[in-house]
């Protein structure tokens, strides 16, 4: 209302008046004797926008055209630079004024900047309510080791145990990522999706936040058989030309599964157990710790707790991936290459190898399979190890989706 009155009083003057330093006055904090109308300020902002967007064109605004009738692009950019300089100066001058906000909990920071395994403290876990278990009547006695006590009818999880198990799980994720393993992050409850995706993004892993399709591992050829896969080298650069060879290969399986809500994902964990895949799971007091390989006893109903755990595991994966890529820069390959793939140019050689191999006796074939090689081959292998650059390209490839 005040602005409207002001406008009625000074609007006509403000429309007529033109200013040579529009932004400076707009940013000034000191009380000006002259009246500033909101309308004028908006027009100045528009002018600045136009200048920033189209530095090579003359400004389209009529307000500006009569102020600067013949402004060249160089003059304009100088003006913008001056205004920006003024803005920064003002910011330096008055930016620190006002009340001082003490550090406080901001929910988005757990997603934007998740804590690393070194940042895990008991206070952080306490603040994220990792200690709250379920009612004592629905506990699983297998969790008795992780429970600190009973408070008002609920079990309280021991935070020391939580921190120890979380660090151990983070170490596992880090090591698996360092050896280029596939890590799958699963969290299918409402609100867990962003944490899951963020963790997978950090660890360069894979995420699932909707529903595990039963049989994706045990019956993977039917369910995931048509999913696209690609071949990459040790620096994660895709190599083309493998499309025909990738057709009909067995589907990919994760090397490690991180499940944030095991209670709803029993089928997934069972399939992992059947197929001998290690799993990490957040085990509340009502969950069964034998479903997973590495339990993390914590509250799986608190989103803050889930974000902390997913963030820590994601950060651990990030550390591992960085170590792997650093090793790749040095020319070291930390994983065993994909079997049965031939580089697009080497088909003839591979065919010749196969025919030569078929001429060998079964015993010799088995020796080749088991990696027992003769001294000459060993010498060449040692040579190659000495000159990493000379290592065969086909020893560095792996299949990812």
């Amino acid at each position, binding site marked *: 209302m005040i602005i409207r009155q002001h406008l009625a009083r000074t609007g006509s003057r403000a429309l007529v008046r033109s200013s040579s330093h529009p932004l400076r006055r707009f940013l000034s904090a000191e009380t000006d004797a002259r009246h500033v109308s909101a309308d004028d300020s908006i027009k100045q902002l528009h002018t600045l926008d136009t200048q920033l967007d189209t530095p090579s064109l003359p400004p389209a605004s009529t307000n500006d055209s009569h102020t600067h009738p013949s402004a060249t692009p160089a003059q304009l950019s100088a003006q913008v630079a001056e205004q920006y300089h003024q803005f920064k100066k003002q910011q330096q001058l008055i930016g620190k004024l006002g009340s001082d906000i003490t550090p*406080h909990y901001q929910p988005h920071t757990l997603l934007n900047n998740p804590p690393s395994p070194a940042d895990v403290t008991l206070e*952080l876990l306490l603040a994220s309510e990792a200690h709250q278990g379920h009612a004592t009547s629905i506990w699983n006695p297998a969790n008795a080791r992780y429970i600190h006590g009973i408070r008002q009818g609920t079990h309280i999880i021991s935070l020391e145990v939580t921190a120890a198990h979380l660090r151990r799980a983070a170490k596992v994720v880090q090591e698996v990522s360092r050896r280029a393993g596939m890590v799958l992050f699963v969290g299918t409850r409402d609100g867990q999706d962003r944490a899951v995706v963020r963790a997978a993004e950090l660890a360069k892993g894979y995420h699932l936040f909707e529903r595990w399709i039963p049989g994706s591992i045990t019956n993977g050829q039917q369910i995931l058989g048509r999913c696209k896969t690609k071949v990459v080298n040790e620096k994660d650069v895709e190599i083309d030309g493998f499309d025909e060879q990738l057709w009909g290969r067995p589907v990919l399986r994760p090397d490690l599964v991180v499940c944030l809500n095991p209670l709803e994902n029993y089928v997934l964990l069972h399939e992992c157990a059947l197929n001998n895949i*290690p799993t990490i799971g957040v085990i509340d007091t009502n969950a069964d710790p034998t479903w997973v390989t590495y339990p993390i006893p914590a509250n799986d109903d608190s989103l803050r707790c889930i974000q902390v755990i997913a963030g820590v595991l994601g950060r651990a994966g990030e550390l591992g991936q960085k170590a792997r890529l650093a090793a790749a820069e040095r020319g070291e390959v930390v994983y065993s290459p994909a079997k049965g793939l031939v580089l697009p140019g080497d088909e003839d050689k591979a065919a010749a190898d196969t025919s030569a191999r078929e001429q060998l006796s079964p015993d010799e074939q088995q020796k080749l399979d088991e990696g027992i090689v003769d001294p000459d081959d060993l010498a060449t292998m040692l040579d190659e190890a000495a000159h990493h650059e000379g290592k065969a390209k086909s020893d560095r490839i792996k299949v990812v989706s």
Partner: protein
Amino acid sequence: MGRYDLRALRVRQTAKALFDSKRNRELPQWYNIVGDIPPGETLARPVLRIPQIKGRAKKPSRLFQPLAIHHPEDKLREDFFGDHPWELARPRLVVEDSGNDSKRYDWSKMVQPGKQLDGESVVQRQLWLMKHANLSKPAAYDLARKEFYQHRHLEDVRRRVAKEEAMHTGAYFAKGPLEVGMELEDKMWEGWKTWAQQQIDDEESMRSQMMSAPQAGAGADADMDAALDDAQEAVPQAREGQGVRVRA
């Protein structure tokens, strides 16, 4: 399998067995990792936490179960909220900033920056007084409680002044939830009254249509009243006849 499915815990042993029996041509990538960082003892029995008491020992089946956690301020909380049950109905902020929030508080004063004033303040202040000012439990409770009332009163004053200031500078406040609810209730009540009147009218008109004879309506009543008036003067024991109708 038995009762427990331990396959998830034994992935490494299984991988080794599959490799040894030549089912798998190579060990998985994580084989050494799981060997270096083994899973914990998942199904081990917890340590015994209950002290051995002669006489009334706990049932053997409950020996390894978790124990209840007790704090010294539990009784104080119980007392305060027993005396002030409506304090529990107030909305309360339970989100912690860093987990170290309570370390900033200094309970030599009632009001803490960054913490709302509630029953917990009274309990902590009482505890502090008992510990540092050597007050007895009832004396500390009395002191803390009265400080709490004083600060609640100041909060009310502050709120009222803030509203007055805001209204003075042109703010206006919309109807509160109670007023809105009352309006809705009134509207519904009025609607029901018109509906009920309509029902009565309809019924009466239907009845008048059904009966051909004239109803004992306004005319009959008037006749009856006139007859009663006449009769009352002649009956001295009648209630309305005694001294009411004094005719000049």
